[in-house]
């Protein structure tokens, strides 16, 4: 479970996030929805402990991220918006490296790597070096290494961005599976259909603030629109372009 309270962050003089509070519960998929530059990535970066908020509180399974980042990070699996690979390492070696850094033993690392190679359909390129990988292959490797320690909380920053249908489907299946395993999934997107298809809860962010936090059905009801896209446009349009 991920809880944030009053997260604030200024990037230089410009406010990027201005007071974000929400809860992403276990066994549910929470979508962070917002236009480009709304503060989704900045919020996620604060949650996974690489950016220090100017104010606010973040708890992951009850562990405070600010006070105890290492313990909190070991409970999270993160796919950042830029997830580069090492061109001279094979897909399998990527998973091994991150597994060991997560404190898994040698045998355990091997076993988990096998598991993820099957799960993400990576068998055909598992032992090839990453230099020539397609975007879909790279994203799968990045996902596998992020989830190798089977974390309770999974944070994905626009995971399906730029992927083809097959890869997108693999990732959606994975997200649903994680939910079935009672994990907490938090992912950001600006693709409406994806959020509508997957999410149990939608947190709409616009201009660094939360414009809505509800189920997709409630979202339609509140805005009085018939499609999620119209609801989104209505919500984002209402939000102040900038706040003080």
């Amino acid at each position, binding site marked *: 479970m991920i809880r944030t309270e009053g997260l604030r962050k200024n990037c230089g003089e410009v406010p990027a996030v201005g007071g974000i509070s929400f809860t992403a519960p276990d066994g549910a998929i929470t979508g962070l929805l917002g236009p480009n530059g709304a503060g989704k990535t900045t919020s996620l970066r604060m949650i996974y402990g690489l950016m220090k908020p100017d104010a606010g509180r973040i708890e992951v399974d009850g562990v405070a991220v600010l006070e105890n980042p290492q313990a909190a990070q070991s409970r999270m699996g993160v796919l950042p918006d830029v997830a580069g690979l*090492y061109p001279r390492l094979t897909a399998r070696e990527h998973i091994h*490296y991150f597994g060991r850094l997560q404190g898994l033993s040698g045998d355990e690392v091997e076993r988990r790597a096998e598991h993820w190679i099957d799960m993400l359909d990576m068998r055909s390129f598992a032992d090839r070096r990453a230099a020539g990988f397609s975007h879909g292959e790279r994203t799968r490797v990045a996902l596998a290494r992020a989830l190798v320690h089977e974390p309770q909380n999974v944070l994905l920053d626009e995971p399906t961005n730029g992927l083809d249908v097959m890869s997108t489907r693999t990732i959606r299946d994975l997200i649903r599976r994680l939910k079935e395993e009672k994990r907490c999934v938090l992912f950001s997107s600006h693709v409406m259909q994806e959020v509508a298809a997957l999410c149990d809860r939608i947190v709409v962010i616009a201009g660094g603030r939360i414009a809505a936090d509800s189920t997709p059905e409630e979202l339609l009801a509140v805005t009085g629109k018939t499609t999620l896209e119209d609801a989104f446009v209505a919500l984002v349009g209402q939000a102040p372009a900038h706040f003080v």
Partner: protein
Amino acid sequence: MNLRHVLTVCRKELSDGFRDRRALLSVLIGALISPLLMGVLFNRLAVEQRSSREISVPIIGRQYAPILVEWLEQQNGVETVEGPADPEDAVRTRKVEFVLIIAKDFPEKFRESRPAPIQIVADSTRQSGRAKLQRLRTLLTRFSAETGSLRLIARGISPGIASVLRMEDIEVSSAQQRAALIFNIFPMFLVLAAFMAGMQIATDSTAGERERGSLEPLLVTPVRRGELVAGKWAAAVVSAAVGITMSLFITSGITLSIPLEDLGFRVRFSAFDGLVLLAALFPMVLLGPAIQVYFASFAKSFKEAQSYMGLLILVPMLPGIMTAFVPLGNRPWMVPIPLLGQYSLATDIMSGRTPSVFSLLLAATSATALALFFVALTTRLFSKEKIIFGR
């Protein structure tokens, strides 16, 4: 600090680095600079030394001074040949290095015990023949002095009267010390090899990591910044250690194959001295990569980092050049100063003196402390959002 994390990072960077052809190449080139240059240097010296002892003197008008020609030919390593028709042109066009011309009136003047004229045609701007020319001059001066003494004795006068000064050169520097002057460059090349070998891994694991965007996922794992930086530094240190050891071994092999004894150098450089030298220079294997990792971490891209590395390569050369050409000597105050201390100890070792354990430890401690300081600075860099996200 979790040592397992450090080892995991170090192992990954090493296996990643040694799959990189550029990394292998820079280790190899770094290790080969020293043996190649030392080999060329000593070979040149050997050739010059040998050839200056053996001179061939072109003489014009040898029939006028058979005594002198005969005396010259009796000297060790001297042969005389017929001089060229146009001596000045022959010297100018470098057909010969010099020509000795004996004047027509030599026999007459010689007989009358008056100064007999000879001429040496030579080009003083030429470096190559200088040693030979010097030898010829010395021989002619000796002939002049010896004959002069005989004339005085024949007249019942002590030859000492004509000699106001009795000059004698006393060579103070031992052959070992003269060899050390050349050997002084050797430690610098070894440190250079370490810098070259550490460079690629230091840049690829920091600036490369930033450029690829693999730093962010890495920092989300429970590995601490200090462990991460220590692992990357350790990988660069291993590479630098491989480089310096290779360089030492190859250079030793090449130097041993050159007959340095022929040059008048008594080289007593044992395997033990080699180990002591390696131990004295080893702190540079720690410090070099620490500095490289720090500066490379500022760079957003591999290319940018490499331009910093190009400048850092100059660092080991500055004091090296100074001690080689302006002998700073070995002052005690140098020992605790990183780099200067290592070179000063190395100079001692190269000239056959084994430094005390205390001075070795003192130099190692200060250089290692500086290396750790740079590692700590780099760790602080990796906590900055500008470094993590600034791409």
